[in-house]
């Protein structure tokens, strides 16, 4: 069993690596299709053609594409994603400073979504009747509301009308944990509305499916108390799809942070990709795409391992 587990993990790691590589190639090609050569972008309008050519030559822009890609890949695996065309800063350093912002945002929103979603979903499935209909209605509404709109409403209510939270900005954890938490509050709540609603629906459906299983009847026939049937047996059965839903939410919220970072002026990865796409900063775009892919692939890998751990059928085989 140890051996098969090691084999499984190796296989999955290779698959993950392949995914990242495919995306890296894709990103490389996309970036090359961007209008403007690196020289033109970095020197800005009004630069002489000769100066532009010189920069392009130095950056290897005229080399064959495969050679350029492998040069980039060679430094990328050593942690060097090149320098920004706009301000000449190291892309790796810039993204490394931005990753904690987006990660705290996505992780915070995922945790809040999971707590809200599992709580409401289980309640809806267990209580049924009016409670179920109310939760279902609210969740249906919440998934349809655009996050950026909810965000503005929250800013209006919680920052403008009553200044409970700061409206914008981000305070690093190192400078003040308390202000860090406060600065994350509004964006996290904003993202958790849709995320929580999604997980609530997933949880409700999974719980109802679990309660339709025949072994629930066996448990009742052996006088298992209702709370134990619900919160030990049914929830355990439903845990697989719920965990999958949470992982999916993390990935989506990681992407959704682009909007939250724009709305709340937070210096995260989303802001970086938005800026670099607008300014045609090729190395930065490529860097963000690769970093985001690594994160998403890693989360999927963790999900798969978690699923294997949670499902006795998979664990044994």
């Amino acid at each position: 069993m140890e051996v098969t587990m090691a084999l499984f993990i190796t296989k999955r790691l290779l698959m993950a690596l392949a995914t990242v590589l495919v995306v890296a190639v894709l990103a490389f090609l996309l970036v090359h299709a961007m209008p403007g050569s690196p020289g033109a972008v970095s020197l800005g309008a009004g630069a002489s053609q000769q100066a532009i050519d010189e920069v392009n030559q130095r950056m290897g822009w005229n080399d064959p594409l495969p050679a350029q890609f492998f040069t980039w890949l060679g430094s990328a695996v050593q942690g060097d994603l090149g320098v920004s065309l706009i301000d000449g800063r190291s892309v790796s350093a810039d993204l490394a400073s931005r990753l904690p912002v987006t990660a705290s945002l996505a992780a915070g929103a995922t945790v809040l979504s999971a707590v809200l979603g599992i709580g409401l979903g289980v309640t809806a499935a267990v209580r049924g009747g009016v409670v179920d209909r109310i939760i279902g209605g609210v969740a249906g509404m919440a998934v349809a509301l655009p996050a950026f709109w909810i965000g503005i409403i929250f800013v209006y209510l919680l920052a403008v009308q009553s200044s409970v939270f700061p409206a914008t900005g981000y305070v690093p954890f190192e400078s003040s944990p308390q202000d860090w938490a406060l600065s994350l509050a509004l964006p996290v709540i904003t993202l958790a509305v849709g995320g929580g609603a999604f997980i609530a629906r997933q949880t409700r459906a999974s719980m109802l499916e679990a309660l339709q299983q025949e072994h629930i009847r066996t448990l009742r026939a052996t006088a298992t108390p209702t709370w134990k049937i619900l919160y030990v047996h049914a929830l355990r059965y439903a845990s697989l799809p719920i965990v999958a839903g949470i992982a999916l939410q993390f990935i989506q919220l990681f992407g959704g942070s682009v909007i939250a970072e724009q709305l709340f002026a937070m210096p995260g990865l989303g802001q970086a990709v938005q800026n670099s796409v607008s300014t045609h900063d090729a190395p930065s775009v490529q860097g963000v795409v690769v970093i985001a892919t690594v994160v998403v692939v890693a989360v999927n890998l963790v999900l798969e391992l978690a699923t294997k751990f949670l499902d006795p059928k998979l664990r044994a085989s």
Partner: protein
Amino acid sequence: MIPNVAPAPADQAQPTTAADLRKTRRQGAPKKFTGSKLFGSFGSIAGVAWLAVLVAASLTAPLWLPFKTEDQDFTAVLSGPTAAHWLGTDELGRDLLSRIFASAAGTLGTSIITVIVAVGLGTLLAMLAAAAGERVENAVSRVTEIMMSLPGTVIILAVIGAVGTNIPMIMGILGVLISAGIYRVMLGQAKSLQSQLYVDAAKVDGVSTAGISLRHVLPGLTNTIVVQAALIFAVGMLIQAGLAFIGFGPPIPQPSWGGMIQGASQHVYDAPWMMVPTGAGLALTVLSANAIGNALGKAPNATASHLPSAAARRQRAKAVATIASAAPAPVTQDGVAKGTLSVRNLSVGVDSTGAGSGVRLVTDVSFDVEQGTVLGLVGESGCGKTMTALSLLGLLPSGVSVTGGQILWNGRNLAATTDKAMETVRGRDIALISQEPMRALDPMFTVGYQLTATIRRLRGMGKAEAREEARNLLEKVGIVDAARILKTYPHQISGGMAQRVAIALALAGQPKLLVADEPTTALDVTVQAEILSLLRSLVTDTGMSVVMVTHDLGVVADICDQVAVMYAGQVVENGRTDSILDNPRHPYTLALLAADPHANHANDMPERLATIQGQVPQPKDWPTGCRFAARCQFAGSACLEPVPLLPSGAGEGLVRCVKADQLAVEGMDWLATDVPAARALEITPTQNPRSLQTIVEKDLA
């Protein structure tokens, strides 16, 4: 912001693993699209209405809008709703109403591009994978898996970097990314359609793969296609608005919903009203599309829950109270022997709320079980045997409950006992074993955990003691390597082994009565015999009684002391096993015996085995007269009247047939041929049995 998986309708769990996808294969063919569901709920009607108004208003916008989108009214900058500007204005004094409606068509139209690409590509890939066999399926699934593990938002932004804000193009690429999710939703259904018998038939007839996909698979997918299209439409609008919000919308000054909300976010301090109209418009539109998708995607009737929700339990408690007050107080005779069960005039029906309300499933059923004896409940599927059996433990599925009569256990009326109080009866007094042992055990816990937890609960034992008792029980039910089995999960043992475990679980509380619902049906023939002999020895050893639900007369002959033959929710004949098997009085019993290859002795085996024409009628179609008349070879006009259960003359047996005496005297046999014209009497069946024709048509539909 970009969903990696297509959203499933709210009330359907999403398949999360490849195993789940495989599971769908066993289900029947998915339903075709019908528009009627669209107008089945308030939400979807409102949704259709709003979208229709929006499209109509947007397309005719130049004709009626009070302002042009770029008209600036500097006298009313950042104004709220006024007579001139019904929904207010923005920072340049442009009319919000005009801008919202003028930009609606563009938003909706480009979202449709995503829908067409995503659903079209996803469906095509699913049909291809389903038709072309496992290797293609694996390849396509692998590619879509990779697509689904991409950070969609970032990739779309990178695409924007390369192609600029070319919205139709971006929405198309978004569709490609989403198609992987659609593929996963569609694949299970496409495979299930592909495995239908009529598809096999078409293949034999030489219809090409493409022909099968178009003619047989695609029509079956239409409902899912429409559902997914509606949901993806909503997703497309949200993403498009999101992109415009972060500055990748149509070029300025062209209005877009996302761009307008972005503008409003700049004025949340000085003009909070501005965010309301556009945001509400977008939210309403997304809500409409979702409502339509959910209404169409609603599963018609989910399997009933085995643990009703709190709300349903409250309703049932009320029903129990009604029964308790209606039924005469149980006569607690001191003379009632321990371990006797008397069911008196039991009726079970569908609850008044929900589908099929008020339909009776079991009517007026009575029988007795003495301590240490085995009663067989016999009949075809759909005769109410299982409902009768489950009602003994108060474990009827959600939406079904006892509507009348008494279930007297040691003189106590269980039909009038609350669910809470039943917990002291279940397991300790009355235990259950069910048809499919694999599904009766919790797949998430080991056999050992399930057994010891039950023993500790029912017998109040400590952990170590319970563990020891669990091993004893497993040995008692004939498992030799009990220690090993305790450590396994249910999926790791065979069906026969699982049924032994399930029996051990049922014995954990040392019950006096065992309710066994077809305990051998799902097992191999050799294992069946072993399980039966185990049950027989348990009855002799422990002195418990058994209610055995079965359709197998061999099982009845083997193990039952008493038999109650059920047909269409009624007991039609009961009595001692030997007298009923040797001397059946009801035509249905006669027919069951004639149709059972094992009940006929080898020397007088008929050339043709008898059959019973037609099917058990649906509960809603039960006639007022004899319920078997429509299928009976001996039916006459007298059978149109309700038939009472009367002494059959054989011992204490009872029979529900007006012609029982006549048949006994004439010694008629159930014939193996079709009903002879002379005997086919002027009975018009209330419902024609489904002919082969209709079955075929239904399958093709």
